[in-house]
């Protein structure tokens, strides 16, 4: 029960954070002018009319980064509880994580050699 109140205050702070974001916008709607015209509402492109749609194809490397991120972030997710409990799981826990890290490092070296980390 006690733990629940602690997490409830985090939840409450999220709500307060959302309000902190919305309130100034509402206030600004009241205080600020609103005189839209087509030129003002056009997407900014240094004064030119937009050449083409902004949602264009982009470099595939961004996908690659996202995929690598998922792998490594999962790894951190495994490392967190392991790090906290290392003193209680002794050599068995230590050796298993080292094996896991070794496999991951092999993968890391492979992706490095294949040039997944190069941006030119």
């Amino acid at each position, binding site marked *: 029960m006690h733990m629940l109140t602690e997490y409830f205050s985090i939840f409450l702070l999220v709500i307060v954070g959302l309000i902190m974001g919305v309130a100034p916008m509402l206030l*600004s709607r009241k205080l600020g002018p609103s005189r839209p015209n087509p030129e*003002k509402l056009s997407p900014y492109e240094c004064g030119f009319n937009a050449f083409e749609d902004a949602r264009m194809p982009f470099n595939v490397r961004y996908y690659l980064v996202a995929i690598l991120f998922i792998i490594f972030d999962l790894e*951190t997710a495994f490392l967190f509880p392991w790090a906290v409990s290392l003193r209680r799981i002794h050599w068995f826990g230590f050796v298993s994580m080292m094996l896991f890290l070794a496999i991951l490092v092999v993968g890391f070296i492979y992706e490095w050699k294949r040039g997944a980390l190069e941006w030119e």
Partner: protein
Amino acid sequence: MLDQCFALLWIIGKIICVLVPVIVCVALLTLLERKVIGAMQVRVGPNRNGIAGSLQPICDVLKLLAKELIIPSKASRYLFIIAPVLALAPALAAWAVIPFTNDWVIANVNAGILVVFAMTSLGIYGIIIAGWSSNSKYAFLGALRSVAQVVSYEIAMGFTFVGVLLAAGSMNLREIVLHQSGGIWHWYFLPLFPLFVVYWISAVAETNRAPFDIAEGESEIVAGFHVEYSGIMFGIFFLAEYANMILVSALAALLFMGGWLSPFAGIPYLDHWFSWVPSVLWLVLKMSFFIFLYFWMRATFPRYRYDQIMQLGWKCLIPVALVWIVLVAVAVQMGWIFH
């Protein structure tokens, strides 16, 4: 029922006591940053409003509030409006688990570091939604760059957290600080020095600050993901960025510099002379140092190129952090340090 109402009021009171100083700090930082960088570039900085420009932040906020909110015709309306809120809420919510002194924290949870890590990750949604919904080329490119960069440095940052967790054996931020008690030589920045450096570099990159501010590189993509935002909507992004900066500085102080512990503890005479200093002041001093470091770096370093940023993150910081984690794990396992 009355008890619960009282408890709720107590929590809200605590939230106000944390958020108001944070927001006042953000306001002061905007002025301080311009003053500090001005001094470093032998300029004066803002000096018109109030004594030595002291009213500048208030004027800025009032001006932003009185400006028109422009929603571009091609933008996805609802996402465009939601994005700044999504950027701000996590930046403020992470403060729930930051302890200011031994018993002054909104939520003393056992998964403190996890909460902070989750909240800083959630901030990415604000950026990518802003960049996508603006439907403008600069915003889109800025968001792409920014997200790839933040995501890359988050891994390095996560690894440094693992090092601290190994040393402290707890995810509770209060306990992590208490594990560092007993004098400056017990603080984690000494045994974990490489992780401390990696943490700070990735923290600067995470908050998209100079020299890693390629996401808003004004010389090429104007302002990055928030080009299309006007008035107070831009102000909310700004608030989120600075709240994140203070948060990351607080984390650096808590995880590596002993949080609210006095640097003179355990030293004869000095310990006694400085015993009157309230512990929260030490934390504030340490945070101020890191925030000053932000400004110093911004005034000193030229902006990195994008490929250099990604290479630094993946090829330098992640291997260094990984090697040091293994070394720390071996040392902890053998019982050499951090008993």
